């Protein structure tokens, strides 16, 4: 073999390696990709339906059944008491809002910053935003003593002349979450239009799916004008939704920070909660991608190690940020020297649920730092799945520590009392099941991969050979 041949061979290997690793360098014809996505949607094994059925039962019994039981009998069937008036309900609310953050973060921020690895999984992340917010809404409505009057919290003109109290962080909460739900749904929908149109064109006439796609695709045909409008709209939304996203969790944190409770009254809570939300959200995205990649047809083409690797890097970064804010919050509270707060901090690590505090630190900091620094490890979907799961458990613990455990300690030691969860555990399991159920349903109905976005990326990427080096070039499309 001559050296040229050798070199050629080497170069060939290199290119093949790059192709294998990077979706953007491994283009397929548009039609083929469309078919792959359609096929992945329509290839459903019996296992899917078994899981779907089980989850439906869980949702019916644990979520709606238990909720109905609680509405009929009062919140006494849950474990909330004096002084832990909020309990797991608010833990779950904050948790789900946290989960919903990653979708927007990945989709909007990475889109704004043109991070190319985002392309195949923006949709998957955006779906999490919407479905996570649905669960957050359920959780917050569940915790209300008289949920049937919850519409009183909306500013509806009425003959009494009564409006919601805009001093209350809960009113801000309601507005922020509603805004976020609406805008994130819009933001989910806009990039979906070309894919819906694609699905419409590949769905036989006379089926209800055809009607579904036809209605939702809004007659999109892919003309230049339509694309231009769509891109404009998406750009506006991508920029606009970022402050909404940050504000939502900041406002959720104000539910606590604006209160007079020791341990809650902290100025750092806003960014701390946002970073915490991203932390759990990233973990959740990793978990979803690992499942999607392994369980859906053709997904190994779209979702590759590089994506997990990039996600893992983000998770490591967010974990570091979270550790910083945690430390900061702890220091500020400790240094403040308020005796009730001191008592509370001591109770966090030394109380009967101190193990939860340590588990939170191990799951949120120690394990991500110990595993994600290694590029090879963080490219492994199942390892990332495991780390994501632990981070989510750790973040749930964090909220549990902030809400029921911190509520145990107040300024009236005569009333301190431990919280033992009741029916809210089932309700929590119900929301998890409902989230998965919605996701599974969506995966049968909505193209999970934004084909146009992937193809757009592939068209912009090309391999150029300069002398002996083959390099990746990206051209600006817009």
């Amino acid at each position, binding site marked *: 073999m001559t050296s040229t041949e050798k070199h050629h061979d080497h170069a060939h290997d290199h290119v093949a390696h790059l192709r294998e690793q990077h979706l953007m360098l491994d283009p397929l014809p548009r039609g083929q990709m469309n078919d792959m996505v359609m096929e992945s949607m329509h290839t459903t094994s019996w296992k899917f339906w078994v899981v779907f059925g089980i989850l439906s039962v869980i949702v019916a019994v644990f979520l709606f059944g238990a909720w109905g039981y609680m509405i009929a009998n009062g919140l006494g069937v849950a474990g909330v008491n004096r002084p832990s008036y909020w309990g797991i309900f608010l833990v779950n609310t904050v948790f789900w809002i946290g989960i919903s953050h990653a979708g927007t973060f990945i989709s909007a921020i990475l889109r704004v910053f043109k991070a190319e690895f985002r392309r195949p999984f923006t949709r998957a992340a955006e779906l999490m935003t919407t479905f996570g917010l649905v669960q957050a809404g359920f959780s917050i409505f569940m915790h209300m003593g008289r949920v049937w*009057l919850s519409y009183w919290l909306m500013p509806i003109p009425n003959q009494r002349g009564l409006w919601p109290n805009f001093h209350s962080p809960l009113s801000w909460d309601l507005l922020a979450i509603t805004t976020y739900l609406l805008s994130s749904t819009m933001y989910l929908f806009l990039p979906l239009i070309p894919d819906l149109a694609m699905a419409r064109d590949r769905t036989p006439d006379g089926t209800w799916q055809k009607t579904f796609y036809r209605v939702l695709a809004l007659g999109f045909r892919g003309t230049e004008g339509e694309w231009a409008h769509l891109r404009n709209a998406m750009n506006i939304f991508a920029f606009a939704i970022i402050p909404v996203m940050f504000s939502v969790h900041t406002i959720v944190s104000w539910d606590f920070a604006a209160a007079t409770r020791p341990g809650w009254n902290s100025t750092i809570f806003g960014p701390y909660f946002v970073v915490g939300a991203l932390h759990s959200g990233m973990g959740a995205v990793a978990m979803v991608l690992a499942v999607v990649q392994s369980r859906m047809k053709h997904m190994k083409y779209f979702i590759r190690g590089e994506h997990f690797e990039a996600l893992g890097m983000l998770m490591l970064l967010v974990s570091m940020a979270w550790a910083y804010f945690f430390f900061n919050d702890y220091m500020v509270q400790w240094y403040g020297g308020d005796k009730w707060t001191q008592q509370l901090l001591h109770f966090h690590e030394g109380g009967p*649920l101190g193990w939860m505090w340590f588990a939170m630190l191990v799951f949120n900091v120690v394990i991500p730092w110990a595993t994600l620094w290694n590029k090879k490890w963080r490219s492994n979907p199942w390892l990332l799945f495991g780390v994501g799961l632990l981070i989510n458990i750790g973040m749930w613990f964090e909220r549990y520590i902030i809400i029921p455990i911190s509520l145990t300690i107040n300024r009236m030691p*005569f009333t*301190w009392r*431990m919280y033992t969860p009741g029916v809210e555990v089932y309700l929590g399991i119900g929301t998890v099941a409902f989230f998965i159920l919605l996701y599974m349903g969506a995966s049968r109905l909505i193209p999970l991969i934004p084909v146009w976005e992937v193809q757009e990326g592939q068209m912009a990427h090309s391999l150029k050979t300069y002398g002996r080096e083959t390099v990746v070039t990206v051209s600006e499309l817009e």
Partner: protein
Amino acid sequence: MTDNFSRRDFLKLASVGAATTAILTGCGPASRYVTREPYTKMPEYTYNGQSTYYATTCRECAAGCGLVVRTMQGRAIKVEGNKNHPVNLGKTCVRGQATLHGLYNPDRVQDPAKQSKRGSRDFSNMDWDAAIAVVADALKNTDPTGVTFLMGMAPDHLFDLVSDLAKAIGAPAPIRFGALGMFEARATLGKAVESLFGQAAMPFFDMGKSDLVFSFGANFLETWLSPVAFTRGFANMRRGGGHGRGTLVHFEPRMSQTASKADMWIPITPGTEGLVALAIGRIAAEARGGSLPAAFADVDVEAIAKSSGVSAEKLDELGKLFASADAALAIPGGAALAHSNGLETAEAVLALNALVGGLGRAGGVFLAPLAPMQTEFSRPANMAEMADFVEKMKSGEIKTLFIHGVNPVFELPKSLGFEDALKSVQTVISFATFPDETAMQADYVFPDHHGLESWGYQRVAAGSSQSALSGAQPVVSPYYNTRATADVFLAAAASVGGATAQALPFKDEVEFIQSKIVALVSESDGYFGAPEINTFTAYFQQYGGWWKTVDELATPGGDVLGKAIQVGEARFAGEGEFYFHPFVSPVLGEAGANKPWLQEIPDPTTTAMWSSWVEIHPETAHELGVDNDDVVLITSEAGAVEAVVYKYPAIRPDTIAMPFGQGHTAYGRYAEGRGSNPADLFGEQVNGAGDLAFADMRVKVEKTGKKYPLSRLESRMGVYGEALGEEH
């Protein structure tokens, strides 16, 4: 769907819509169809939506506080104190407030009934004519010496009527008994006063004007004699009428509610209260100078310091404090007198008052005035008399037993065997308002009205410096098919005929009451006067009783300090390692367990609710290997009970304490099967005055391994620094 959509479907949907509206607006059409029952004839003093207030007397204990009950449209809404009443001056205690939960208790006896077999709870209702026939038959056809009336502790109109009835038929005089009297040691107080001052009377302690109170076991803020009056006295003492803030020193092995308000709590060895009083007397006498009175001459302070666990220095401090006060007062009572040396203890403590010139001095000790229509001091039966009575029952001497206002199966020591003795009585007729343990062992239950549905009067035995007769009238019409026991006896007497009917020639209870209070019409210095009985009765009801407007306190006399007082060692029964210190639950009293709100009122010292407990010092508990919420078995010579541990930091490590009031085996849904009854542990030992020496007991404590989460209001973590994980 389109084809089948019928009018019926429309209406179904419409009703769904209506229901939705009801839910969404928070109010619906439903509430308008609540049935309103207007008056057929509106009483002229009633307006719709306006309250009417009736004065009556509280029947929750024998103190005889005056109440004013707010009623609205024939329902009793709220109990308030009678501002003019000399006992309580417009105030009430916790039990008085909850009396409405007795009136509207869901488990009241609703009809006269016959029980097929005692204890079977198989009651068949009968009508009142048949019930009266049963009573009349029992009065007529039993050998009169075999008829006994067992009454509650309060000296009320029914007691007078029954006394008259007993006299008329030739039966023995009725017996008055109540567990509170047993715990208060009333007989001991009376006997001590008699032997010291030469005159039997209830002592009256003028606490409000004293500046230093030494209380030897007297739980006067809880249930002792007249707690509302004493609480007022305590408050006045603390406010310091002229003396500056008064000081309270309390001697008791456990920190009771009264002790918790004391400036100094002396956790004294049980049974040495009398000795300590003597030592204080000697030191005080020495401090005051002059010759040492004979009463305290032979006292060995060092030995007493050793046996009582109160150091000689402390005794010295206390003695000098007592000697130096302007108006010192020493009060004996409660568990301090429930020892074999209880009578001597009471004498020693009362003698302390004589030492500092407290007899008949403002802020000292007086003899309480006799109530109106009373010629001599009378007291409820003591335990020795009750034991005799139970013996008589066992021997079959008693053929017919009428029981009213007392629940002896629950209240008497189990070792006395009252329940067994009932088996030897042919006919047992209970007049219980509530299905209590005694009613469950009766042949017949002929329910009396609740106190708020009844007429009557009640003599005030303690707590008032004025001679007072508290009046009672129905504030609501009877809710159930009950009848006043007085009316039942009057009707039965009439149907017996002969001398019996002649002795009680009254149409009804009210006529009987009038026949008694007519004697007051001619009395002077009354709160009100009237020319004739009908006007007098009207005022009597309106004001809630009749009382003198002037104090009638007598100054105790006699050579109190002239003879030595010998206080012996307390003789403890049983071999256990712990002193047993029972006390009446300050919230439930003797009969409050069936009132749900009282059950939910936290005990003042432990904040426990809905159950009973045993107080054990934390270190002792540690040695025993028990913790909070562990169930322990307490064994005395006479019996055994199980109780939940409450680690109580303010109790002697060699003493355990238990509240009386729970542990019912009947008495309605809120009382039954809740906690345990310390009376099951009591033996039969009595003190010199015949009162039960219930504190003369040593008990064993064993771990059972069972757990029972005791409901508390307090946080164990916040108050005791316990880890919260263990909490219920």
